[in-house]
């Protein structure tokens, strides 16, 4: 058989991709958006309760309460991941449970659990940040850039 002509091959590929896009099932966008809104909103509501608890009962200032509130939410996310519940929530809510800080906890705890069998050093330690690592790297870079812009604007 003759070697394939790259131009003709590209055309065949494009035509095939059109067929695929045509036949591909469309995700239920409206249902997904509503589920993400409700669950994401509910997680934030819990966060607000926790925040109110720290400011109201423990008399912390709003600024002081931010740290313990985040820590509590991270604990909840990690705990629910450990119980095997968070992946079920994620399946239903999509971005609604990925975007809040509980989702961030889930993205660190789930690989840590998954790779425990490869040992605590190379498994848990080495793989813990496989999902969250890129987020941390680029979030840190973004915060530096924003900090620089803010500093330049002030001076």
């Amino acid at each position: 058989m003759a070697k394939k002509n790259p131009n003709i091959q590209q055309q065949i590929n494009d035509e095939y991709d059109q067929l695929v896009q045509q036949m591909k099932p469309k995700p239920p966008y409206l249902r997904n958006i509503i589920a993400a809104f409700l669950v994401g909103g509910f997680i934030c509501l819990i966060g607000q309760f926790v925040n109110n608890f720290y400011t109201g009962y423990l008399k912390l200032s709003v600024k002081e309460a931010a740290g313990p509130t985040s820590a509590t939410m991270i604990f909840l996310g990690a705990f629910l991941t450990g119980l095997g519940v968070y992946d079920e929530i994620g399946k239903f809510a999509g971005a609604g449970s990925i975007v809040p800080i509980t989702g961030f906890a889930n993205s660190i705890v789930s690989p840590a659990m998954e790779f425990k069998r490869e040992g605590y050093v190379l498994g848990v330690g080495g793989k813990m940040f496989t999902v969250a690592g890129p987020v941390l790297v680029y979030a840190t870079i973004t915060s530096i850039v924003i900090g620089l812009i803010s500093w330049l604007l002030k001076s």
Partner: protein
Amino acid sequence: MSGTKKVGKQTVKFTHQPKIISTASIVGPKEGEGPLGRYFDKVLTDNIYGEKSWEKAESKIFKETIELAIQKAGLTEDKIDFLLCGDLLNQTIASNFAVRDFPIPFLGLYGACSTMVEAMVLAAMLVDGGFADYVVAGASSHHDTAERQYRYPTEQGVQRPLTAQWTVTGAGVVTIATEGTGPNITYATIGQVIDLGQKDADNMGSAMAPAATDTIFQHFKDTNHSPDDYDLIITGDLGKLGKKLTQEMLKQKGLDLTGKLEDCGVLIYSDKQDVHSGGSGCGCAATVFSGYLYNQLTNKKYKRIMLVATGALLSPTSSQQGESIPSIAHAIVVENN
């Protein structure tokens, strides 16, 4: 080509008609709950099967399936000439670790999810060519070992796209022999690697459909058979979308398989099981053939079927480097005499 067993460009015709004298299949709980549940030899109550890791569990499942296939054939390990196995894991460890306790010469195979038919074709060739009397061929996959190698940690909360498939937990093994009772293997069509530039690793049905189309089309061209000569043409793990695409592309080429074309990945789970496009993995075609299809053949529900196992030959590395997904499909024809 001087051989008399080669027909056309890619097909071989078995002149001594090797027989499938036994099959065995062991599956996970989800597969057991599916519509084909009662056809499998054993359904596990959980995916870990008393082991310390998913990988160890997969090897244990595979090993027991091989033992069962040999036992059901009324044979002992020393009677088996060769063992041909494959799976999805890096360096095919599920197979290598499953067979290390067997004193049988072993050939390890990798054809992604097409491995079952690859193993059956080679086993049939060994038997037909007079190199062996008894060959055991099998393939396995495990949802959780595949998931952690190819995709996400199991506890990560993500929404899977509708085109995604669910890797089957299970192993299927067959014993192919020169003599004995069971359906015959009469033809095999070896696929070539086809790549139409699809890149979405969450949509493997679309990547593999062109390979299935090519192999099925080539089979009919090589043998001069018509679809009416077959009771069933069943692909390995194209899923709902891949099956639709294959049917459409074959229609465009002038082959109408309406009502004849099925897919193991579509049959193994029900819609209620939330698997989106269907099942996938080496174990999909392997368990559906060893369980359901073999049963239908021996009960004379089908006279002649063609099993076309499809494989997406990607790796997580190739996907991350932006490569498209090369795919392959091998076909084997099994019939009652």
